[in-house]
């Protein structure tokens, strides 16, 4: 079977693992041919890719949506071409009205920022802090995961349980380690006292850690949290610099999506929704994740 | 005073430390053809650029057609009725000959503001007619100006100026690149203008031409007007001595 895959972007650490999970799965099966395209984070390009797949007559399409609210047009396009479609990793907005031969395999993005911030909050309490000041490093402002995770952080901090945490400032690093490093150095130049940094992703957290280390800040005194559980992040955690990150089973999602697509292409029924939960990673359970991403 | 077409008082232009034009007092009367001569870098073109407002003058005043004028750009000068052949010709290299001739005042079929439809046939015909008067040969009018010879370019610029009615024509070295025949034709055009009573300022290095065509000769030297002589009261030798500085002094005013 020929399967067309459109990924939101290629140069994203997490999505790369997801994609590789899918490719590894396909290699193990005979007669499965994957055609993976890079939508370069462009909704319109993604829609065009689906139409290009249709023109090439693939048997099923897997989409890792750039934008979960842009999926209606994609569903329509695939339905018009009578080709099964599986969304992966990001929950499409039209999830309740998906046609019969469409499905999705995704995680609930709202969990990641919540898990991260709750753990940061717990660590502060454990350290006996009555008041904690934090900086928030956001991802790309036009990206939903960034918007969602930032919202999660704010919601957790708004709960009475964690309301002793104050956000000094929140700025964007565009997911980028270098920008995060520069941003953190700029913050350090203001001389404000702070107790932690909550970042939207691990790369930004690592950038902040590097800036703090360059400024000779004792990493035991600050709590830094990220999301993704990348290899670099896990190493930073082993070194005691990063305190919290959140794992998402990328490879598992990829493989699951491929499974669903193959079944749909054969006309079989599949579960409409598959949720793969996020998992909190701390020094306590890090060993479980070392080989995963 | 009423027959004075153009008058400048104390017209001055400096480029940084370069004093290109210093206190020029100049008058041009109705129907008069005046020549401006002077060394290279004497300030002749600078004088023209101030009058036509291609540049903004440092100080001084200009009267044109009876009133003081402060043009903010060459468009205004042109709209007021000053047609100029600039030394650098001011042609659009990528356009063909008719487009250049009618640049900025295209003939249109319907007026739809900026989106007016051009009357291309008419412009082509008119261009051919205008070029015939200069005797220049241009093998293909649809070639771009970029691909024209030096003289061809100059003839296009002259034809453009001669095609449209105006109150004052200024030509900055119009025949510099022209051949023998073309020069003769352009001189004929200038004579026709004279007969029609149209005033003209001619900048030229060609003594014969100046004496043939003009009533009065103004000499620039180092940014200053050093002589202002009626043709009858002077000769080539005299002019040269003003140009080189052998004779000096704010010269006797001709009437």
């Amino acid at each position, binding site marked *: 079977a020929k399967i067309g895959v459109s990924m939101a972007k*290629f140069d994203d650490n997490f999505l790369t693992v997801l994609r590789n999970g899918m490719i590894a799965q396909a290699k193990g099966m005979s007669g499965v*041919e994957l*055609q*993976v*395209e890079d939508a370069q*984070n*462009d*909704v*319109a390009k993604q*829609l*065009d*890719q689906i*139409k*290009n797949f*249709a023109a*090439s007559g693939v048997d099923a399409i897997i989409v890792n949506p750039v*934008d979960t*609210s*842009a999926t*209606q*047009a994609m569903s329509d396009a695939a339905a018009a071409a009578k080709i099964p479609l599986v969304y992966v990793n990001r929950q499409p*907005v039209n999830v*309740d009205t998906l046609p019969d031969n469409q499905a999705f395999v995704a995680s609930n993005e709202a969990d990641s920022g919540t898990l991260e911030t709750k753990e940061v909050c717990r660590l502060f309490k454990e350290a006996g802090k009555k008041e904690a000041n934090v900086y928030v490093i956001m991802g790309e*402002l*036009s990206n*939903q995961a*960034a*918007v969602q995770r930032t919202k999660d952080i704010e919601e957790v901090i708004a709960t009475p349980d964690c309301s002793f945490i104050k956000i000094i400032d929140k700025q964007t690093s565009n997911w980028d380690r270098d920008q995060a490093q520069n941003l953190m150095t700029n913050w350090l130049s203001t001389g404000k006292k702070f107790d932690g940094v909550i970042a939207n992703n691990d790369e930004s957290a690592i950038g902040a850690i590097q800036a703090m280390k360059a400024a000779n800040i004792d990493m035991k005194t600050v709590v830094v949290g990220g999301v993704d559980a990348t290899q670099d992040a896990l190493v930073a955690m082993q070194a005691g610099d990063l305190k919290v990150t959140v794992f998402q089973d990328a490879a598992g999602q990829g493989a699951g999506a491929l499974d669903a697509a193959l079944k749909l292409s054969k006309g079989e029924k599949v579960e409409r929704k598959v949720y793969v939960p996020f998992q909190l990673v701390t020094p306590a359970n890090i060993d479980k994740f070392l080989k995963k991403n | 005073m009423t027959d004075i077409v153009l008058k400048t008082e104390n017209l001055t232009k400096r480029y940084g430390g370069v004093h290109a034009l210093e206190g020029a007092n100049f008058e041009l009367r109705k129907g008069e053809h005046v020549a401006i001569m002077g060394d290279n870098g004497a300030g002749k073109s600078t004088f023209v650029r101030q009058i036509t407002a*291609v540049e903004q003058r440092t100080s001084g005043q200009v009267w044109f057609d009876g009133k003081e004028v402060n043009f903010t*750009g*060459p*468009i205004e000068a*042109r709209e007021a009725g000053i047609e*100029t052949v600039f030394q*650098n*010709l*001011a042609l*659009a*290299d*990528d*356009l063909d000959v008719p*487009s250049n001739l009618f*640049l*900025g*005042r*295209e003939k*249109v079929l319907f007026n*739809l503001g*900026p*989106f*007016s439809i*051009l009357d291309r046939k008419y412009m082509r015909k008119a261009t*051919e007619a205008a070029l015939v008067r200069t*005797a*220049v*040969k*241009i*093998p*293909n*009018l649809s070639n771009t100006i970029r691909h024209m010879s030096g003289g061809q370019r100059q003839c296009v610029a002259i034809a453009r100026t001669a095609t449209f009615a105006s109150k004052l024509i200024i030509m900055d070295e119009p025949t510099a690149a022209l051949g023998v025949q073309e020069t003769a034709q352009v001189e004929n055009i200038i004579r026709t203008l004279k007969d029609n009573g149209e005033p003209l300022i001619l900048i030229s290095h060609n003594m014969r031409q100046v004496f043939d065509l003009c009533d009065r000769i103004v000499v620039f030297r180092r940014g200053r007007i050093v002589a202002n002589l009626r043709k009858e009261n002077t000769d080539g030798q005299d002019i040269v001595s003003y140009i080189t500085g052998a004779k000096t002094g704010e010269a006797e005013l001709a009437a």
Partner: protein
Amino acid sequence: MAQTSHGVGGVSYDAKKRTWPAEFNVFLALVILVVIFELIGRVFLGDSFLFNTRSDVAGLFNEARLQIIILQVSIVGIIAIGVTQVIITGGIDLSSGSIVGATAMIAMSFAQVATVNGNPNPKAMFLAQGWTDLPVMVPLLVAVGCGLLAGLVNGALIAYTRIPPFIATLGMMVTARGIAKWWSKGQPISFPTESFAAIGKGLMPVIIFLSLAVLFQLIMTYTRYGKHCYAIGSNEDAARMSGIKIANHKILVYVIAGILAALAAVVLSSKNLTAQAGMGVMYELDAIAMAVIGGVSLSGGRGSIVGTVIGSLIFGVIISGFTFLRLDAYYQEMVKGVIIVGAVVLDQWRQRMRALRA
């Protein structure tokens, strides 16, 4: 020497020796590209790029492919029509992609429905104000207004402060992207009305693109506006001295480019049934590349809309061809760069050959 004419007197001119329009070269590059894909397809995949090899559908050509080739470049193509005019006047417009983003966000928020599947629209911006289910003219006018405003700012900056167009539009690029992100704080805006959604449905983008292209090709060739674009791009000083109102003209050009970008935003968000702040990123570069591949000179004064349309088709063929060949995505970008350069090299080479042979 055959039949010669003498223009206005002068050297011999062999009128039969017509020069090909510059667009011909670009068209040739397009044809070569299609033939290459067709050949590779036949030889290595046993499949046809353009022709129909499936039994379940009728027709000589693979219509789905023909459609997507042009459909996928229609939106950037609309932008490229404006960008072409800007470049012909000697300018450049880096802001079009961001204008698309900002306009899509703003216009879409006036095109939303009140209820989705019986629930209140979760993404509606102006639900509280009751500005939902508005007639399609409202978002359209809002979009045109946005494009006009952005173009006006670009044009006025360039015309009056004389800063380089690169900087003015770079500033607009950054600012408009900021506005796009700020408008809904990064949230996408979705669920448009039926009538708005109709604008980008099916082949509508193609129809809009091609109509605009024809319109502006005529304008560039037959009107004073077009003539002045070429004149300013060719020699701005000369144009100024000839009495062309440079400032007014430039403002008009950038306003047109802005409005075209805004129209592209409408088509784009309608086609995708959503608007998001990241829309249109890098579109400006693609649009410029389409124009240049189509023979528009970046130093101004030369080029045509027709050329740009052919340039956009080259893009479309590249993208569809890659998917057709099932080329690994990693190689696609590398090869795409090579093909863009190759198309222009071919064009240059033919022009030089012609000049030498002439």
